[in-house]
């Protein structure tokens, strides 16, 4: 995978690195993808499960994306399928909270979502990258209308409470200024012959021209207040028509202020492979997918079933469960094979006879903390006052993200935004509060970015994933050490049982991980079932 010209200086490669590190992954990725470095989702199109043994049965534990993907495909292939689901609804973490919904978290606090009709938040996944081909496939199959998800909005904010007097900065300005100053510096280094050892004279000419374009530099390779730079960062007074037409260029922030602010760390937020345009959201909420899947599978899913024991022998698997709504009586269900998608913190507590290696793997994966809060306001002030239409504001405040609705633009009346999307230590702290305290804190912190908050706020909900009764955490966190030690053991078929879910994928926390994990696993289960022949 060397660069084509085989030049001894490796200058082009070095250049790519430099550009990749500063301009972010977009330029880098475009260059690299032609070399085949960048990988897409392994999804290969509809799974081929021909030749299912007559009468063979599969019991699936969990009606989330993994479980329902597997149930759908196995049913269509002729297997007898049953699904046990703990919740009273299908979807698992594919879930939307809408006005009128009630949600009781561990610890007993019940929230009544008081949003107006048609407003919602997605407490779990909220975006689908276009290259999550499995998710795109099933979304299409289930006739789910998609809307654009604005990962990057140049008019949303990057905010640091310690920079620019705590005043949020437009993404557009930070990006333009960071890029412009870096281009100017690199041009200066080039013209002072500092790059002679690594870039040929011929390439230097091209480099300089590219820096001028990329950084919006002037004819002297300087990043200054000009039409060119204002065309990136915005004008002091934008061009218009008539006698008031003449634009007034804006003044870039100084390099020191940009560097010192730390806001440059947000410039590449849309450049990672998972965040690159286009991304989508299901109209009406991510939960539309789980709901449609659940409807499609209909009576195959048994809801309110809490699994308490999984026991396999050489002919099949027996699962014991209780009905959440009338606990006490234990029921059992048996099948030839079992696909278990139960999140690992829960599965680790369920008695089951699997190999020691799989049992160790199940206990080896800690789950990430995450909290999301939805807030309803009397008006869409972020659009009306600040001209922010969709996208995300990033802040160093404990709320970390504000997600603006990517739909319903300019509609009169109320609006709901994602007031916080939090992970790590701060998510743990938010989890430790009551839901009402979380919402209050989210409003308080958010008002540092949008002063309209306190006046316009109406109601809110806050979901802390470690208090979700059906997951006990947000998603599995692997390290390269735990992957090396446990990942294959987790994914191997163990007798008549196999696991699937985002935890059994390299797409941790993404629905695509659940889908591709399910397809990979049922493909292997199917091979084994076929090899066993007719029902044993």
């Amino acid at each position, binding site marked *: 995978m060397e660069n084509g010209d085989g030049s001894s200086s490796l200058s082009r490669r070095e250049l790519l690195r430099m550009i990749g590190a500063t301009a972010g992954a977009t330029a880098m990725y475009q260059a690299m993808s032609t070399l085949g470095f960048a990988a897409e989702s392994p999804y290969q199109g509809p799974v081929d499960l021909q030749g299912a043994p007559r009468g063979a049965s599969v019991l699936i534990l969990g009606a989330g994306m993994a479980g329902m993907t597997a149930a759908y495909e196995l049913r269509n292939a002729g297997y007898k399928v049953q699904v046990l689901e703990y919740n009273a609804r299908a979807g698992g973490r594919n879930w939307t909270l809408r006005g009128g919904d009630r949600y009781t978290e561990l610890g007993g606090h019940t929230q009544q979502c008081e949003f107006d009709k048609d407003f919602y938040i997605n407490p779990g996944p909220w975006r689908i990258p276009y290259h999550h081909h499995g998710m795109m496939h099933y979304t299409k199959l289930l006739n789910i209308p998609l809307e654009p998800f604005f990962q990057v909005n140049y008019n949303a904010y990057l905010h640091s409470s310690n920079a620019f007097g705590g005043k949020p900065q437009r993404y557009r300005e930070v990006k333009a200024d960071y890029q412009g100053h870096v281009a100017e510096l690199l041009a200066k280094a080039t013209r002072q012959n500092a790059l002679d050892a690594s870039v040929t004279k011929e390439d230097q000419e091209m480099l300089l021209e590219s820096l001028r374009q990329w950084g919006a530099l002037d004819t002297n390779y300087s990043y200054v207040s000009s039409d060119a730079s204002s065309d990136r960062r915005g004008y002091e007074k934008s061009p218009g028509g008539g006698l008031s037409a003449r634009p007034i260029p804006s003044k870039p922030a100084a390099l020191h202020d940009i560097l010192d602010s730390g806001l440059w760390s947000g410039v590449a937020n849309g450049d990672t492979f998972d965040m690159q345009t286009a991304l989508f959201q299901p109209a009406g909420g991510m939960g539309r997918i789980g709901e449609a899947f659940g409807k499609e599978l209909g009576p195959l899913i048994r809801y309110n079933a809490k699994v308490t024991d999984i026991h396999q022998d050489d002919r099949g698997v027996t699962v014991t469960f209780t009905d959440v709504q009338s606990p006490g009586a234990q029921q059992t269900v048996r099948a030839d094979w079992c696909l278990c998608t139960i999140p690992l913190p829960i599965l680790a*507590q369920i008695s089951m006879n699997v190999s020691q290696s799989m049992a160790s793997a199940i206990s080896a994966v800690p789950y*990430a903390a995450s909290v999301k809060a939805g807030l309803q306001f009397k008006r869409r002030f972020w659009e009306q006052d600040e001209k922010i239409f969709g996208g995300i504001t990033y802040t160093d405040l404990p709320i970390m993200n504000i997600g603006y609705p990517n739909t319903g633009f300019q509609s009169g009346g109320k609006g709901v935004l994602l007031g916080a999307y939090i992970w*790590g230590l701060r998510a*743990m702290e938010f989890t*430790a509060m009551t839901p009402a*305290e979380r919402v209050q804190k989210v409003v308080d912190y958010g008002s540092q970015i949008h002063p309209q908050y306190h006046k316009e706020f109406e109601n809110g909900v806050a979901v802390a994933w470690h208090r979700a009764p059906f997951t*006990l955490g947000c998603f599995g966190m692997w390290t390269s050490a735990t992957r090396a030690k446990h990942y294959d053991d987790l994914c191997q078929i163990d007798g008549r049982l196999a696991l699937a879910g985002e935890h059994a994928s390299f797409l941790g926390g993404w629905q695509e991980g659940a889908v591709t994990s399910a397809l990979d696993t049922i493909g292997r289960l199917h091979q084994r079932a076929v090899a066993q022949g007719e029902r044993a």
Partner: protein
Amino acid sequence: MRNVALGVALGAAALLLMLSAYADSPMFTSRATLGSLNGEQIYDHICQGCHMPGGQGAVGAGSYPKLAANKNFVSWRFVALTVLDGRNGMPPFGFPAGHGMNSGPAHLSDAQIADVVNYVRSHFGNAYKAEVTAEEVQALPHPAAELMGPQ
């Protein structure tokens, strides 16, 4: 940089239980101030997210162990190793200091882990007297110096 003094003032679990819905909640800690929290504050800021105020635990599809009157706590090593390395989905807190990003697990020092172990073993109806020291925690296995962030 939220200050620790307020955290101290507001941190007690009993007080938190008494707070009305819209009363102020404990101040946030941060990477910078986390290191100065004592055992009780660590419990209030972090542990009770799952183990609940008063160490009452919770039951859903799975459960969070009740820490109140917990017989496993006879072994301080069991408790300390659980905090250091995590257990059954519980995140580890024994990663080396300064490691990872805001998104990853939080680091607690050996002294803090000793302090929170002593706290939970002497509260919520537990009355184990033996005080664990930072040196004793230091001697236990710690997780490797790496982690990954979220999506």
